[in-house]
């Protein structure tokens, strides 16, 4: 099958049929930032960080299949400004206290904050009152840090493929609900997987923490996206 030709910021790129824009960009060494997207999960398009302009229209790169001849704008002042704003919106929507968070340095939201040089969010903090769900033996969920990317909803299931996490309510009250009976069955290994899946510090494996010291973690060494940009 012949490759699809398209361009990102005037750079000629090729892609395979069926690839999304973010996947294709990655293969071409171009970083389109992502946050809710995760390899192997069905793209959800919740965070909108990967918003690019395709033939003049804004679209989420993670849910848009690449097509022949697409002219994609990725790194422009307007789009990067919008991404920075989305990172800031997430910081004020929840309660994110990086210094005390187990995920600091491994957190994709924090890493994007650094990448976009967020000093302080332009938006007022909302300081919401959020729950911590710690009844399950192996996993705890701190919704203060949840950005509702829906990775856990998509990727963490019971052995008979039922949902453990799900979006409940709507609008600004929307939050991640938990089937507590199902969550109680999560094993230590599954908890670790769920924690790795979570881009922030909302899902944590119980009884372990800070094994790798802060300062020696993934994004402490290299900024997010550098693994793609080389």
């Amino acid at each position, binding site marked *: 099958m012949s490759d699809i030709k398209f361009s990102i910021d005037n750079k000629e790129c090729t892609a395979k049929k069926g690839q999304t824009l973010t996947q294709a960009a990655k293969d071409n060494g171009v970083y389109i930032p992502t946050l809710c997207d995760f390899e192997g999960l069905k793209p*959800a398009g919740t965070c909108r960080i990967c918003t690019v302009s395709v033939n003049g229209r804004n679209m989420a790169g993670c849910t848009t299949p690449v097509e022949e001849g697409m002219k994609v704008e990725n790194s422009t002042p307007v789009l990067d400004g919008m991404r920075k704003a989305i990172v800031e919106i997430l910081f004020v929507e929840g309660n994110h206290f990086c210094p005390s968070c187990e995920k600091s340095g491994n957190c994709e939201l924090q890493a994007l904050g650094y990448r976009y040089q967020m000093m302080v969010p332009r938006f007022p903090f909302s300081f919401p009152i959020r729950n911590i769900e710690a009844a399950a033996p192996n996993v705890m969920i701190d919704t203060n840090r949840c950005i509702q990317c829906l990775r856990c909803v998509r990727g963490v299931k019971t052995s008979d493929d039922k949902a453990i996490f799900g979006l409940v309510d709507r*609008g600004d009250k929307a939050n991640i609900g*938990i089937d507590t009976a199902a969550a109680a069955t999560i094993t230590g290994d599954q908890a670790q997987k769920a924690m790795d899946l979570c881009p922030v510090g909302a899902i944590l494996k119980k009884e372990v923490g800070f094994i790798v010291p802060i300062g020696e973690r993934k994004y402490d060494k290299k900024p997010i996206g550098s693994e793609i940009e080389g």
Partner: protein
Amino acid sequence: MGNIVDVVKKSVAKYNSDATQLLDIIRDVQAELGCVTDDTIAQIANALNLSTVEVEGVVSFYHFFSKKPVGKYSVYLNNSAVAVMMGRGAIAKAFETEVGCSFGNTTSDGNIGLFDTSCIGMNDQEPAAIINDVVFTNLTADTVKSIVADMKAGKEVKAMVSDLGDGKNQSELVKTMVKNNIQQKGEVLFADYEIGSALKKAASMDASALISEVKESNLRGRGGAGFPTGMKWGFCKDAEGEKHYVVCNADEGEPGTFKDRVILTELPEMLFEGMAIGGYAVGAEEGILYLRAEYLYLKEYLEKVIEDLKTKGVLGANAGGKSGFNFDIKIKMGAGAYVCGEESALIESAEGKRGEPRNRPPFPVQKGYMNQPTTVNNVETYCSATQVVLKGASWYAGMGTDQSKGTKLLSVSGDCTKPGIYEIVWGMSIKEMLDMVGAKDTMAVVVGGPSGNIISEAEFGRKICFSDLATGGSMIVIDKSRDLLKIVHNFMDFFVEESCGWCVPCRAGNVLVTNKLEKIMNGNGSETDLNELDEWCSIVKGSSRCGLGQTSPNPIQTTIKNFRPVYEALLQKGVDFVSEFDMEASVQESCKVVGRTPNLGDH
């Protein structure tokens, strides 16, 4: 608990344990139990082999489902902007006084619950409320008094309706006080037509020729987006699938629109015939009418119309007399969610799920209802298609403007002497419309509802058509006596409430812009705030996933553009920043606890 188990069992059995009927199951269960508690959710989940969180997700998504008791009588009083303009505040107060509890609550005996609700499609007869699925319009303090007395006396809600509306509103299966308020009939929708004649003609044609005819007429979607109908049918017909579906979007939720209510009441035969024509065109045997929960009072009546059309041979086996063409229509009820007017969200909802828009592609014409090719069209679109087929594309295309052919139904409400339904030929100016509806001293017109465009007098010469001022039909007239920003704020509250919560900019961004608007309205704004407000609106519009977030900041952004002095008058001049922090309010709670009065000194 025993009761819960039995009720759930009965309801789940009634719908053949079919999870795609989850909304119906929840509605039935709530009707019997008064609410859907966590125990009930667990029972439903168990019976349908779903996770509890999936069922809870659905229950909590829809406005008319509740985990808390809503009362034996549940009053849902419209709080849309026009309802407020027409005196909703006094009516709410009257309800609270008479009932003895505040909105958002249920009386301690569990008898009456009072709740707010978004626009219920009665803007031409506000203030209005829905009580146990029965609509009450033109409420006054006196009628509230008698309604509450009736509720306290245990009277059946339907029996509280005395004066019936006009036309089919009086028919046996409707019997509602809702009025049609048809102010102007036009050449297309309200023209004479013989039931079944259009389908007969359509079925005499080849499906491709039929689609060509619709394409030639240049008929465009009447819900607001204006996608060419013939093209949509063509895509759907050509898409591969085991089955094809025809869906009618009767979920008009844009505040200020009520035209589909009138069509559903007066012209349902034309609508269903249009759906059958669509079915013939795309190769579907099944049609679904997705009806908004607010119009539940029309359901039985519409089902009877469908039965009658089957008897007449317009629907059912060999529909329209065409041997081998079978077409049936069923009605699916919504449960209170504006976003379900978005076609892919509507499909999700029709499948018994949360009404969250889907990522596209694939488009519904490729993978829609049950992942099969589906055409979703508006109520008015199907009716127009019926007439296009009957009278020909060139007849239809002879009316209107270059890009906008035929007629359009307007739902006019607000400050005018003749609110109601107008069938106009595309191309009418706003000025002409205002004269037609008896509007005086008009400050602004909300064209296309909150998600549209709020225009000022300087633009009243503009024309109603897709290439100038596009509209799904909602037209709200605002005169000079009104506080424009209060109306804008009401619209923003609506979007915050109705966002599905899926994507970040819409879920959280709409809250941020609304708070910023409040800051300015409270006199704590500077020029910087106003400029930031405009920028933040662009961020929400530019990055949101679906049409809701892509248009929700329009009330703010179009008024900043068209009514900038209204904002500027509220700004503090000569300063870059004004704090909105209120020390006195902030220490109130702690002072109360320790029992002292705030001593703020000269801060």
